[in-house]
């Protein structure tokens, strides 16, 4: 038997990592072994673990060619003074892309909050799109069709979280795609891959073996702006009441 080459191992390993998750019945446009009906994507953000290194912001920019000055994901740093949770002091220098400079504060409560598209189930952005250029996939990801968007920017206005921007050269709306091109091939998102502390973890809510189910049972989690009932699927562990 000929010894297996490095190249063969290279090709087998990602396929092996992917194979266990997916049923062999695909939609023709995505990876052939991926069935979107078997998945429901969300993400777990652990505030207690985020160190504000900005790896996620840089990785996302590299993976998705995000233009300078615009952000598919960003990190905010909060300073809450004593009981004044309704007026935190927040900064996000260049979205936290190069990390954060030393804080001006020496007391109070301080923490980082990574933010990006919540891939809402009842997203106001898809509701207002006049042409159907932004839409939900069957596996719970909100995407933008860059070849169909007319650039009216209504979706950018309608997003309560500020996660959309107008692409400066393509002149269409743009935002986090949950690295759809990666997750359908069994990889995780670029931000999760590069998070050094596990503060960001992709979650497949339809997969009964996904660790998020156990986590949700044993931790207090919140979503951002729950009063707007967007059906956000980014779950934050340890989210403080001051977070806007």
């Amino acid at each position, binding site marked *: 038997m000929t010894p297996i080459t*490095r190249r063969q*191992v*290279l090709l087998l*390993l*990602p396929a092996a*990592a992917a194979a266990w998750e997916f049923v062999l019945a695909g*939609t*023709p*446009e*995505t*990876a052939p072994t991926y069935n979107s009906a078997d998945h429901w994507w969300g993400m777990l953000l652990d505030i207690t673990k*985020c*160190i*504000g*290194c*900005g*790896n996620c912001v840089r*990785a996302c920019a*590299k*993976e*998705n060619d995000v233009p300078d000055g615009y952000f598919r994901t960003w990190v905010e*740093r*909060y*300073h809450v003074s004593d009981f004044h949770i309704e007026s935190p002091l927040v900064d996000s220098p260049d979205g936290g892309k*190069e*990390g*954060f400079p*030393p*804080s001006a*504060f*020496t007391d109070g409560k*301080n*923490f*980082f909050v990574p933010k990006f598209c919540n891939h809402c189930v009842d997203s106001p952005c898809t509701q207002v799109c006049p042409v*159907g*250029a*932004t*839409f*939900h*996939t069957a596996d719970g990801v909100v*995407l933008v*069709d*860059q*070849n*169909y968007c007319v650039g009216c920017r209504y979706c950018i206005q309608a997003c309560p979280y500020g996660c959309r921007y107008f692409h400066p050269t393509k002149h269409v709306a743009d935002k986090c*795609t949950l690295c*759809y*091109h*990666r997750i*359908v*091939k069994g*990889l*995780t998102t*670029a931000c999760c*891959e*590069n*998070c*050094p*502390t*596990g503060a960001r973890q992709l979650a497949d809510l339809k997969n009964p073996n996904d660790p998020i189910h156990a986590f949700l049972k044993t931790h207090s989690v919140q979503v951002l702006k729950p009063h707007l009932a967007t059906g956000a699927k980014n779950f934050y562990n340890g989210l403080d009441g001051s977070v806007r």
Partner: protein
Amino acid sequence: MIPLKDISHLLRMAVVFLLGLALFLLLRSSFIPKSFGRYGHFRGDALGEITARPIAYAGHQTCEGCHPEEADTKSKGVHAHVNCEACHGPLAKHAEDPASITPQLPDVAQLCVRCHSENIAKPQGFPQVNAKEHSGGQLCDTCHQPHSPGLSQGARK
């Protein structure tokens, strides 16, 4: 009864409207993309276009396939859950064709402090130092082996 000749101009206008409607229906059948509506109110082909995007980060499983020694060292240290490309950058192209691209070693002076420079907003238990006070200007990898940086693990250089 209104004589026909007194409403003939309205009938002609109605014909104009019908022609307009016919034109509209013709435009619809010609210009709506064929894949529109296949999965919902969007262009079905968009899914294929989006997933066809090239991948920049190979993912740690791929790296570990060719670099088992480094993977093994890392798995025993405190950087066990820090994935390779978090420090080495996007290397899918290198994984695809290792000989064609030689990855550059990360710039230690910049790299380590991004995570480990002390900041009041970082979680308390997370190892963070004031770089100048900690090493007096020496580069981090003078003492710490990046793949297993804990000094107690005998990884001191």
